[in-house]
């Protein structure tokens, strides 16, 4: 494994609303090595996306704020960077692709324009050079007839094609880190597999680290080296992918795995996790999972379990262990 590229320490991003403070990210720590893929898993509304947006400092402003913690990227502290400095990092050293390829491209410009723009802004290429490079990039993401497609408008391309354009745009400047926020959720299953395969191939070619945000554990198993499971703004379990699937320790991780369909299972019905993700305006005291946990003990109501290393490289936040 390479050096540490991204170190997030005790990150707290709160959103201040008239109804109260939403603790969207509440003390999250993780590291990401160069060229590594880390999966960030959890249900909707558990703070995965907000964690990703915090790294780029794109959380909603002025309501949102990083109230505590540090984000260190390639040895530099991002929390202290000004908006201007962040603009030079975004799209160049750290890129992000979004969930909705349908709405993530500007509808009034041909898709090539976006890529050309990134190259001109960050790499100072001339229009002509940028256009040539954009065609190359479209070829790289396996878009047929890139010379012609560069002039196509977003609505003329399918969802999968648009996501390929987004990937080309994100990788145009060979970033060191690519944040993929549920990149395949809005796509068909077959296209999903193609897009994920594409991300994997390009990541190897470009030696990019990937932070893959998803709620699909199948995707994690196939594409990630390490996994962090989030619940209600906190990381509850962190482990290598093999270790996590072989020996899930946190009751929430177990429940998530129990809710997956399995080929060898004879059971007719999938298990569900009772209840819903708690309201982050007023999270439950103690362990945040206790209202839905089937193995809770008295301590879970009162005290928040810290994240502890149970075996090498496998950390869990649970009183039972």
């Amino acid at each position, binding site marked *: 494994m390479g050096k540490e590229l991204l170190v997030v320490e005790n990150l707290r991003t709160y959103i201040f609303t008239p109804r109260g403070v939403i603790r969207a990210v509440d003390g999250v720590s993780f590291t990401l090595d160069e060229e590594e893929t880390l999966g960030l898993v959890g249900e909707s509304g558990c703070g995965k996306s907000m964690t990703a947006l915090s790294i780029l400092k794109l959380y909603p402003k002025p309501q949102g704020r990083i109230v505590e913690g540090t984000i260190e990227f390639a040895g530099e502290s991002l929390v202290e960077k000004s908006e201007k400095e962040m603009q030079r990092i975004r799209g160049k050293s750290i890129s992000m692709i*979004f969930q909705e390829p349908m*709405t993530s491209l*500007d509808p009034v410009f041909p898709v090539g324009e976006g890529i050309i723009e990134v190259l001109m*802004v960050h790499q100072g290429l001339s229009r002509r050079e940028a256009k040539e490079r954009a065609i190359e990039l479209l070829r790289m993401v396996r878009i047929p007839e890139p010379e012609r497609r560069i002039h196509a408008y977003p609505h003329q391309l399918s969802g999968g094609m648009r996501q390929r354009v987004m990937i080309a745009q994100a990788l145009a400047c060979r970033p060191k880190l690519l944040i993929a926020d549920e990149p395949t959720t809005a796509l068909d299953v077959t296209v999903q597999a193609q897009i994920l395969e594409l991300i994997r191939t390009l990541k190897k070619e470009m030696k990019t680290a990937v932070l893959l945000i998803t709620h699909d554990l199948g995707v994690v198993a196939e594409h990630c080296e390490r996994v962090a499971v989030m619940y209600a703004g906190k990381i509850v379990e962190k482990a290598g992918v093999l270790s996590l699937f072989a020996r899930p320790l946190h009751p929430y991780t177990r429940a998530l795995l129990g809710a997956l369909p399995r080929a060898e299972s004879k059971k007719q019905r999938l298990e569900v996790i009772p209840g819903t993700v708690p309201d982050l305006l007023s999270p439950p005291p103690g362990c945040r999972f206790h209202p839905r946990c089937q193995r809770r003990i008295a301590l879970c109501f009162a005290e928040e379990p810290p994240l502890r290393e149970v075996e090498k490289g496998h950390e869990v936040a649970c009183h039972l262990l």
Partner: protein
Amino acid sequence: MRSIESIAETLRLLCRNRAALVGLVILGVYVFVALFPWLLAPNDPLKRDLALRYRPGFWAGKEFARFPLGTDYLGRCVLSRILWGTRTSLLVGVIAVSISTGLGMFLGLLSGYFGGWVDMVLMRVVDVLFAFPSILLAITIMAALGPGLEKAMIAIGIVYTPQMARVVRSVTLVIREMEFIEAERALGASHARIIWYHILPNTLPPVVVYATLGVAGAILDAAALGFLGLGAMPPAPEWGAMLSGSHKALTSGAWWAVAFPGLAIMTAVLGLNLLGDGMRDLLDPRLRM
């Protein structure tokens, strides 16, 4: 090369939209008249002859063909004055709307994009302007600036600014929240770049439509100011001023001195409205497959 293709495409779509086509033809005729009035006008629009006051036009008989649409209270040729007045009226409409579009887009984009106190302050100013009836506001501004056609253009431009600012602001609010703006941010685009390259072009379809309709409104307002004697200085031919000068003619039975300038205004406004409506459909990029 692509821009030629896209212009050809626009024209093709325009031809399929009947209403817009009619609007375009009407407007084309007006523009032609505005550019070359001397080719069409049968008489000198300024030449007066009190002996020929309130003469009817061609409908009264062959001997009246010299003034096809009759003469006004000073014996001037109504048709020639309408034709020469086209240039003034279109110019007033276009310039006034350019002023209001420029100012309105500036205010609307800033207000919608940045929100917060910027939005608060700008929109309260706009609210104050909104609180005046438009013609009263125009008269007030004219009172400060003094009479004259250029000043009427400025006054009407200011009067239309709040509406344009509101339209642009509301569109900006919608576009600002779209995913591609967030995607642009994630790619490192600055505020200026996002506003100028991504939000502004996306606000254009409604703005173009609104501006086209605004030209019609501005022509009407200019006519109203002219009617009140605040627009074009006599004896310059201008549609509103023609109405104002001849309104007494109605009681003396010389309807033509009022009806034809009114008809000219009505047709121009109709043409612009048809075109504006057509543009709304035309500027939707999703229709261009």
